Every structure is written in structure tokens, then in C-alpha cells.
């Protein structure tokens, strides 16, 4: 679990950008989507999501907007910005390179 937390902490920004790159989301939905798509592997300490969202917003990578739902409830949806898209593309490329290199070493050599 501690190892997962460590991996999560180091890559939280990329994971959030990745989700928001597909559709705008609010905080609670981001947590649920991360859990669902990773099949429970990534469990965010929920309170720590918001500092990450605010940090990304301050960096101009995402932007938050309050929206009123038909039920009258308000939610703050986050949208990825152009700057966020550009960073996400760089991060994706870095991950692909990293995974390729890892696979070359971890997978048993084919004879």
C-alpha cells in the first residue's frame, strides 16, 4: 500500500491531467474515476486531491468553473487548458519511453 501511495504521489498531477484530458470533471468524480479505471489500484486520500487541483489551476494547467446542476446543486468542474494539454502530451511520451525501457528489462528474454 505504501508503495502504491508513493507511485500515486509522484504521478498524481499526470493522472488528473489525463482524466481531465478526456472530459471535464469535479473532485469527487475524479476520485471515483481513478479508482474505477485502475480497478481499485489507485486510492486517493480524498482531501489531498483538492490541493493538487488548486496547484494545477495556479499553474494554468486546468481551470475550475462552478456549474449549477438541474437539481440546483453546484459543482466545481475542472477543464484542462491548452497548456495542460501540451504538458500531458509530454508526460505521455515520457511514460511510453519509461514503460518500453522497463519492459525490455523486466520481461524475461525470449530465446
Amino acid at each position: 500500500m505504501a508503495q502504491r501511495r508513493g507511485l500515486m504521489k509522484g504521478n498524481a498531477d499526470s493522472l488528473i491531467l489525463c482524466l481531465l484530458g478526456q472530459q471535464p470533471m469535479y473532485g469527487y468524480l475524479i476520485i471515483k474515476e481513478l479508482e474505477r479505471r485502475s480497478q481499485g489500484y489507485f486510492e486517493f486520500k480524498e482531501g489531498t486531491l483538492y490541493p493538487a487541483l488548486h496547484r494545477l489551476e495556479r499553474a494554468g494547467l486546468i481551470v475550475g468553473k462552478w456549474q449549477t446542476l438541474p437539481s440546483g446543486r453546484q459543482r466545481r468542474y475542472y477543464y484542462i487548458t491548452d497548456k495542460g494539454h501540451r504538458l500531458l502530451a509530454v508526460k505521455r511520451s515520457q511514460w511510453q519511453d519509461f514503460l518500453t525501457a522497463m519492459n525490455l528489462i523486466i520481461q524475461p528474454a525470449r530465446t
Partner: protein
Amino acid sequence: MTTLSHYLNSVRDNLRLDPPSEREVINELETHIEDELQELKEAGLSEEEAANTCVRLLGSAKLVARQIYEAHSQGTWRQALLASTPHLLFGLTFALNWWQGISWLLIMLVLVLGTAVYGWWHGKPTWLFPWLGYSLLPVVAAGLLLLYLPKGWSWLAIILYVPLAAWLVYAITVQTIKKDWLYSSLMLLPLPIVIGWFIAVRLEGSFPQFSLERLHDFASWVGLSFLALGVSVAIFIRLRQRWLKAAILIISGILTLIMVVGYAWSQLGLHTFLVLILLMLGIFLIPALLERRIRHSTGT
């Protein structure tokens, strides 16, 4: 008070952001809690169980507040430059001997007062507080100059003027504490340095004719001390962690005082040095204690 409102109050108490930003953060956490509670209750938990689980999943309120504060606390380079500008201007005024030109001093006064008033009415941004501190300097300087009135008059002036000036400084300090006590310390930081140099210069003669001969000798060091404060304030604005922000102010304040006393040891001596150090520490302790008292009395 319910578990959840206690949790949200604890986050609010430790956020130390602008009121609009604070409201946004709390509203966002509230909507998160509503969603979470609904899901937990649909899963069969009681109201109390759901609230306790929700708080556990969110994690420590203080940690969440501190991390959100750190996401917001780092100022831009532009804000850092704006905040350090009054220190740099004051430093350059002495380092380049501009202090002898009355027109430059008037320009400085108008600039400082104008910027302070503008910032005060535009949401009290972080860069405002050093400007506010320098706009209080004429009030302090006038009080110090009253000591040089002819005998008899000086005491009368002190009895009438000092309480009024102290009340003004106190009222502005209390207003800044409502935002964050660190900003009060940022505002008052140059005060012990100015008093230190004022005592070191030891004006000779009586009001309004003074001999400023000694100020010529000290001018470049006076300038250097305020330039050093300007650099520290720029670093303060750029730092994220609160304890580091407090540390840079305390360390730079004390080091600058040591520089003042070191250069003017024969004029100041140990007793004055100790009094100035106490004043510098008071600039940090008193706003922190006042903030605690104000928060306690308003129940937030």
C-alpha cells in the same frame, strides 16, 4: 456541532486565504462531502457512520488546509518585485544619497501613500503590506522627531501624539491580522531597523533645525540594510511553506538589526541592541497572539 461542520471549520481556521478563495474551497469541500455522504448512506451506513467515514477518507483537516494554503501561497515574480519595491526604493534613497533632495522625498511619500491606499481598496493583495509599513513610517518618524522639541513641549507632544499614533498603528495592524498575522509582521518589519538607525544618527540641535552630519556617514549602510530587507521580502513572497516564510522574516530582521548595531555600536550599545531585538521579536509574537485572541473572540 456535527462532525462534518467541525471538520470544515478546522479546515477554514487553518487556510489563511483571501475570504473569496476561502469560501470557494469550503464550498467545494462541502459539495464533495454531500456526494460522499449520499453514496455512503445508499450503501447502508447510518448518518453518523457516514459522517465519520467521510472525515476519515478526507484525511487530516490541518493537512488538507496546509496543502491548499501552499498551493495558493507562492506569489509570482511580479508580486515579489512589487512587494520588495518600497524597501528597494528606501534603500536606494540612502545608498545614492537621494535623501537630501526634498522633491525626491515628496515623490516617495506620495508614491508610498498612493500605492498603499490603492492596494487597501483592491482586496489587500500580499504585495500591499510592505507599502503599508512604509506609509506608517511618517507617523513613527514624526513621533521620534517630537522628542527634539524644546523642553516642556516635547512631553506635551508625546502625551498627545504617541497614544494617537499607537492607536493608528494598532488599528491598521488588527486589520491586517484579520488576513494573516504574517502579513502584519511583514508590514512592521522595517520599524525596528528605522528606529535603530534613528537612534544611531543622533540628531543634534532642536526642531526644526537638525544637524544631519552623521547621517552622511551612515547613509550607505542605511541603504544596504533596506536593500537586504527588500531581497528577503522577495524571497518571502516566492516561498510556499508557511514556516519558511516566518523563518525568512525573523532571520532577515534580526540579521539586519545586527548589521545596524554592528556598524553603529558606539552610538547604540548593548542595551539598545537588546531593546531593538525585543521589539523585533515583538513584531512576530504580538500579531500571532493577537490573531489567536481575535479568532477566539469571534469564534472562528
